[in-house]
């Protein structure tokens, strides 16, 4: 494709027959993720027909409708199960799953750890805004302890999931964490996640000032982006900090990178052996 940049490139991948404007609030990070996803796919030189974007429910689930790929908007929490079927049926396809934090770690927590264990060749983008946005700001499995939401008016008493640790422990092939503030790095992580074999996870920290910010002293979108800039640091820098300093920061970067073959590769190799030997 011709060399394109900025909005010209983005427009090339949007659906012209889709009714715009989109559903995202002003200041939401989801649009930035969509931009990153488009740049990553364009950067890898993939054709639109080679890419299938599968999304769950909620704000992040709406993302798929805007882009001109094969897109599937599934049920809440189950996007990975649909993606598994698509990848097994069409192993040559690049299947990218877009999920929120509730989608992936609450209702879909079981599917996430099993997709990782199974090492199905799917790339999961987890848009973590620490809150249930579309349903009105209830707490999610990643809402930090002590922070406020519609269902934790006195502060969250439960512990929150660390997506990176969870997916690493479940043996995903590629695990990374980026933010919508560090966009260049995010573009690269999504590219690496897509080109890496097996199950890849990119946790993307993205602000929801509408539901999370207003209850947690981040009054404007800018406050939330400043927080991402200040609190999220590279894993190398993070590792050099003292324990007390670590508690205030979030590490980002690539945490796991293996090149184990994906389930679909292993299955079709086995099937070829079976059919050859029959």
């Amino acid at each position, binding site marked *: 494709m011709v060399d394109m940049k900025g909005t010209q490139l983005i427009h090339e991948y949007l659906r012209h027959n889709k009714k715009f404007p989109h559903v995202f609030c002003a200041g939401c990070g989801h649009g930035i993720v969509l931009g990153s996803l488009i740049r990553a796919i364009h950067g890898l030189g993939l054709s639109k*027909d080679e890419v299938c974007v599968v999304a769950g429910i909620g704000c992040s689930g709406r993302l798929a409708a805007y882009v001109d790929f094969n*897109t599937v908007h599934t*049920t809440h929490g189950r996007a990975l199960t*649909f993606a598994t*079927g698509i990848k097994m*049926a069409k192993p040559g396809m690049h299947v990218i799953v877009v999920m929120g934090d509730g989608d992936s770690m609450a209702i879909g927590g079981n*599917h996430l750890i099993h997709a990782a264990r199974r090492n199905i060749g799917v790339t999961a983008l987890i848009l973590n805004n620490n809150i249930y946005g579309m349903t009105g700001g209830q707490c999610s499995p990643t809402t930090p302890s002590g922070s406020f939401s519609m269902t934790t008016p006195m502060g969250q008493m439960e512990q929150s999931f660390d997506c990176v640790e969870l997916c690493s422990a479940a043996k995903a092939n590629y695990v990374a964490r980026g933010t919508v503030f560090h966009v260049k790095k995010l573009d690269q992580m999504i590219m690496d996640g897509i080109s890496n074999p097996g199950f890849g996870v990119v946790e993307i920290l993205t602000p929801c000032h509408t539901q999370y910010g207003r209850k947690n002293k981040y009054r404007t979108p800018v406050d939330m982006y400043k927080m991402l800039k200040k609190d999220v640091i590279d894993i190398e820098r993070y590792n050099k900090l003292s324990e007390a300093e670590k508690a205030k920061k979030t590490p980002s970067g690539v945490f796991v990178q293996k090149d184990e073959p994906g389930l679909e590769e292993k299955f079709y190799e086995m099937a070829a052996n*079976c059919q050859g030997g029959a």
Partner: protein
Amino acid sequence: MARPRKKRNKEIFALGNEAVVEGALLAGCTFYGGYPITPSSEIMEIMAQRLPLIPNGSFVQMEDEIAGLGSVIGASLAGRKAMTATSGPGFSLMQEHLGYGCITETPLVIVNVMRGGPSTGLPTSPAQGDVQQARWGTHGDHSIIVLSASNVQECLDNTIEAFNLAEKYRTPVILLIDEITAHTREKIIIPNPDEFEVFNRIVPTMPPEWYKPYEETVRGVPPMPSIGSGYRFHVTGLTHDTNGFPTSRPDEVRELNERLFRKIDQFLHDVQLVDEVDTEDADVVVIAYGTVARSAELAVKQARDLGVKAGLLKLSTLFPYPRKATERVMAKAHTLVVPEMNMGQMSREVKRVNNGQVSVRTINKVDGQIITPAEILKVLTRV
């Protein structure tokens, strides 16, 4: 079986569950995703052995039934004929995805080998308790096709039929069998490929930019491309317009919902499969399905020997309920007898069609045992 066929050749001695697998493979199934649960497990086990042996065949054991049906929908959207099998509790878990299959018009087959319930119930005892769940389990208004099988041969034949109807009408099709049929071993005949019809979904032929994924057609069934074939469109469980994008405009919402019903309801003659035994002159007609229909068939013969003009209407299609066939037998009979291994899930449908015109007797049994011919005969000789 409703579709007649000519010469048959290969004979095997098979379980009902094995016959389901044979039928599915003959119909062109190349994907199985699911989660094992008795008494349906053999279907999954045999699929795991057989699918790697066929070109493009793939199999995946998912983490639960929700995931199982999710993977089946994904594979079907990607162009495969796909199925899963389960039993009561697993079927309950699948209900949300069943509705998703209905609204996205995804062809797929779910086999539910019914077991006693509610809840975990009786894991390996027969029951017919999921009839209304198959019809109404998922939320919202929807049309659905539910088939049944009363012996091992029908497990094969009706599985082929289930795939054909799923592809023809772009809809999930449920095959309800009970534990006895699933675990009975009988001689069955595997038909030659040229002896039965295999229907494949209609794919679009127009240029991709002209294609509208949910546009009305003469049959009400839009053509369906597979993911990755050049036709890029949006699939969503939200109520959508003809382009596949979410809408809440009343005219578009109504149009979609009405078409989803219409596409099945205008072809009832094709969908409603029944068998009749001695119904032409029958005063009393047994309406039965599944294993109970076998008991009923013997009971009808014995009743005839005793001079009772009895007949049997065996339902291969449970939903859409075969209204025409029921009205036909009612025109002559004074009594309908509905035996079933539940508290009256199908007799509700019979009574609804009957609407007080003739007498309806029910025989209900929920103790995990089959309804015997003697139990049906007793009723036939008293009415």
